[in-house]
């Protein structure tokens, strides 16, 4: 048994199978996240990374397998229920509300979980000074990097216990990639557990505690890199070859 499947984890997924009508994508994925741990999912396009993430957040219903979060079974529950338990996702397409202001987007992030909304929002604005300047701006008028910040900020408004990030650096200019990396590092410092899907291996390895490599819907490699850095070349080889 892989060590990350031991008890006292925040989230434990076992034997996840999922897909779409007529096409299975995940073939028995095991995955665990400990409190305050950052796990990165690596893999080629179509290897099932996003599907794995969407299965955890409830957008894809697993065909088989179990997902336990803080001891409760959540596999197959609808997204809004999973959200209310503290698993918050930032999706690849960001899925913001384009015709609402930055502030409204953020406030809606706290709609379902409640809490001190004003304080939360101020906290987000402190972390993202760029957003504070534009708090009354419509989101659709912002650049991709700024929108990504809004998306992450909106997720933080939901006071996540586990944050799922789907390609946070995807399609962004290098300046923003750096900024996003810094933000994720800051979140890690705040001890927020995360599962991150990332194509940018350098970025991924710089923030990961552990990584998993998915290939055709199966985990082919898992490694803890807290002990020592992994060989980037090696990883690229095992992803694509």
């Amino acid at each position: 048994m892989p060590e990350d499947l031991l008890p006292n984890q925040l989230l434990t997924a076992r034997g996840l199978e999922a897909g779409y009508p007529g096409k299975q994508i995940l073939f028995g994925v095991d995955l665990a996240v400990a409190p305050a741990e950052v796990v990165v999912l690596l893999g080629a396009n179509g290897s099932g990374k996003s599907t794995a993430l969407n299965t955890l957040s409830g957008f894809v219903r697993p065909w088989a397998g179990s997902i336990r979060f803080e001891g409760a079974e959540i596999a197959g529950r609808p997204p809004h229920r999973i959200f209310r338990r503290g698993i918050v996702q930032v999706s690849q397409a960001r899925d913001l509300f384009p015709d609402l202001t930055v502030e409204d987007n953020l406030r809606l992030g706290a709609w379902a979980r409640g809490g001190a909304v004003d304080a939360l929002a101020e906290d987000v604005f402190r972390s993202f000074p760029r957003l504070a300047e534009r708090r009354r701006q419509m989101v659709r008028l912002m650049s991709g990097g700024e929108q990504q910040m809004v998306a992450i900020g909106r997720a933080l408004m939901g006071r996540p216990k586990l944050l799922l990030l789907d390609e946070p650096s995807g399609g962004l200019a290098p300046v923003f990639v750096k900024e996003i990396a810094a933000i994720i590092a800051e979140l890690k410092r705040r001890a927020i557990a995360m599962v991150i899907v990332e194509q940018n291996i350098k970025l991924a390895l710089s923030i990961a505690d552990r990584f998993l490599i998915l290939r055709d819907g199966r985990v082919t490699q898992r490694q803890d890199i807290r002990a020592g850095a992994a060989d980037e070349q090696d990883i690229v080889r095992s992803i694509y070859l």
Partner: protein
Amino acid sequence: MLAVFLQLVVSGVATGMLYALVALSMTVGYRATTVVNFGHGDMVMAGAYAVFVFVGSGLPFAPALLLGLVVLFLFGLGTQRVLMRPIIAGPHLSLAMMALAIGYAVRGGARLEWGSEVTTLQRPYAQDAWMVGPVVFTTDDLVIATFVILLLLVLFLVFNVTPVGRLIRAVFQSQRGAALVGIDVHAFHGVMWGAGAALGAAGGVLLALIVPLSPDMGVWTLLRGFAAMTLGGFGSLHGAVIGGLILGVMEKLLGFYLSTVFIDITAYLITILVLLIRPSGLFGRQAAVRV
């Protein structure tokens, strides 16, 4: 001559208020779910008959109205939950057809019960008429106008000022985004579908104040509601109202000065012309066009 023109405009506005109300209720459903309910006309009709039944069973008008709205709310909620939700991810055509079929069945049910006779809803107030200069107003006109304007104000506040309005706009803009912030989109759709049905029912009751009840009364107004929405811009609340008013006035003016045979097609002509020339309508920010 001016007197006639003024009268036509005033009557046009009065009729337009009804179209506006139907369009408003459709807009609420559309804004919340991004699905156009092609069976909405039959909710309008069902609302009128529901209140008719409650009044007939001896209830005073106000509680009967309230009960009717509640019934239609529950009916809208129920049909969305049981019939629309399972196919919500399917092709748009299935959604349109499902709404049409629900409406058709409701109409069939109403026809079974009331199809072979003409009935009317008793007004809860005394009908009166006044002359303002050369122009005639009736109590009906005032009641309907007051109701529609109040409703517009309330909806405008709800949509643009309250947190619920922000929520409605959010779900309209991105359903997945809404789900990502923990909103139960399906339940929300159900509630809003119900709200649309209840508002449509209110429209039906107002309509029933001035015309006899008929199982087809909703279908007759549906296309006019569509025309009003198209003209005003899909999804726009004040657009729906202004579109309805313009349609009402146009019908009267075309009918009187050109020929009454044009009254029936004013709505169709408006729909076609607007979508060809300016698809976003008068006030729609959301272009009506998607490729």
